[in-house]
């Protein structure tokens, strides 16, 4: 292991990590919004929208991100839709993530007893109030593990941004590797960088889940 090489290229990796983290974060935030909207459209059976949401979710969940990115970045410009690499990255990740987030929210909402929603309606809450004060808090508590799992999944999926010629972690490593001689060091740092990025997310997930369990959710005793 050539520690001098590692020391001299650590700034390349921090720059790459920043790209990975930034676009991963944009993607995660947009995915959460899109996922929540899709999920609510389906939960409340909004005409037309629920079918669009359903079709979109099936499409996004059953195709690889790599293929989606190629279509966005190399396919669409040929029919006149030109997007920057950064836009493709965020759109691609959101397209994928929105579907997964929607499924996580849905499992949360489905775990809330129907009587809760009906009781809210009886008390005269508007639909928005019912969602905000009755349904979402309970649904989120159940959905948190799945939501965090999706966040980690999406940040890992950003490794495919390198095909968009973005200088993310993967592309930084690939560039250094092809310039020769230090494959082992390059890959070691790549793995370490993802570990450093994802460890705090994983830790946050564990802490949040533990807090929610103290609150009395999901205490069924099992085998």
């Amino acid at each position, binding site marked *: 292991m050539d520690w001098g090489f590692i020391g001299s290229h650590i700034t390349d990796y921090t720059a790459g990590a920043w790209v990975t983290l930034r676009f991963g974060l944009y993607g995660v935030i947009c995915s959460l919004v899109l996922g929540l909207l899709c999920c609510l459209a389906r939960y409340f059976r909004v005409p037309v929208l629920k079918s669009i949401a359903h079709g979109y979710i*099936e*499409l996004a*969940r*059953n*195709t*690889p991100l*790599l*293929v*989606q990115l*190629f*279509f966005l970045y*190399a*396919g*669409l*410009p*040929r*029919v006149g839709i030109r997007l920057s690499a950064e836009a493709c990255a965020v759109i691609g990740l959101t397209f994928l993530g929105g579907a997964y987030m929607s499924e996580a929210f849905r499992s949360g909402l489905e775990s809330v007893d129907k009587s809760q929603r009906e009781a809210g309606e009886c008390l005269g809450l508007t639909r928005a109030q019912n969602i905000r004060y009755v349904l979402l808090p309970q649904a989120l508590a159940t959905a948190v593990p799945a939501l965090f799992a999706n966040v*980690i999944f999406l940040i*890992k*999926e950003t*490794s*495919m941004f390198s*095909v968009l010629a973005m200088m993310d972690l*993967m592309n930084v*490593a*690939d560039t250094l*590797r092809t310039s020769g001689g230090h*494959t*082992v060091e390059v*890959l070691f740092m*790549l*793995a370490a960088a*993802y*570990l450093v990025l*994802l*460890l705090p997310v*994983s830790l946050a997930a564990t802490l949040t889940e533990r807090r929610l369990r103290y609150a009395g959710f999901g205490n*069924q*005793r*099992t*085998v």
Partner: protein
Amino acid sequence: MQDLGISVLFRGINFQRLLLGLWVTLRIALITIGISAVLGLLFGLAMMSRSRAARAVCRIWLEIIRFMPQLVLLYLVYFGFARLFGWNLDGETSAVLVFSFWGTAEMGDLFRGALTSIPRHQRESAAALGLTRAQINRYILLPQTVRRLVPQAINLSTRIIKTTALVKMINVTEVLKVGQQIIGQFYREPSAAFWVYATVFLLYFLICWPISLLAGRLEILWEGNHH
């Protein structure tokens, strides 16, 4: 112009070439699914074993696949192993190795999850009724575990199929690569790229969607037996 682009797909044997490219990834996926299904069950048992060492190994294994993107693992094996150990694995072998390493741990975790999610009273009631340990396993725990596990395992196999698209990044000539070759050959048709990538997108969807539907159906069908 656009109808010119789409015609590229049906010129000569272009469409067959795409399908052959798809078969390359599917073959990797099928081998991976087979290996992961068998080793995954062993992994799941090891996760629940009394041996601390076995549990620790599984824990570390699981954490590695949780934290490392599959693409990074592919690079480690394809480029790293050659440097570290002098093993020059070809792309397909590296892919099967990496995806099985990943699939085994995911499958094992699903198995463990399915088994441990069975309420304790199921075992206790069976014991109270005088069933032996073997009978409890055979008639009470196994059927419920299978019904929880199978839909999730099917979903995992669609994830494996989707993930095999990554082999393009380690120089395996699969469907995306074939697509690029076709686009290169027909560079005079500007919209060829659009139609080729749209076709690849659709092909993946047509393979994964029915499998996902099956998993969903089974989940609904067996839901009544969960409690």
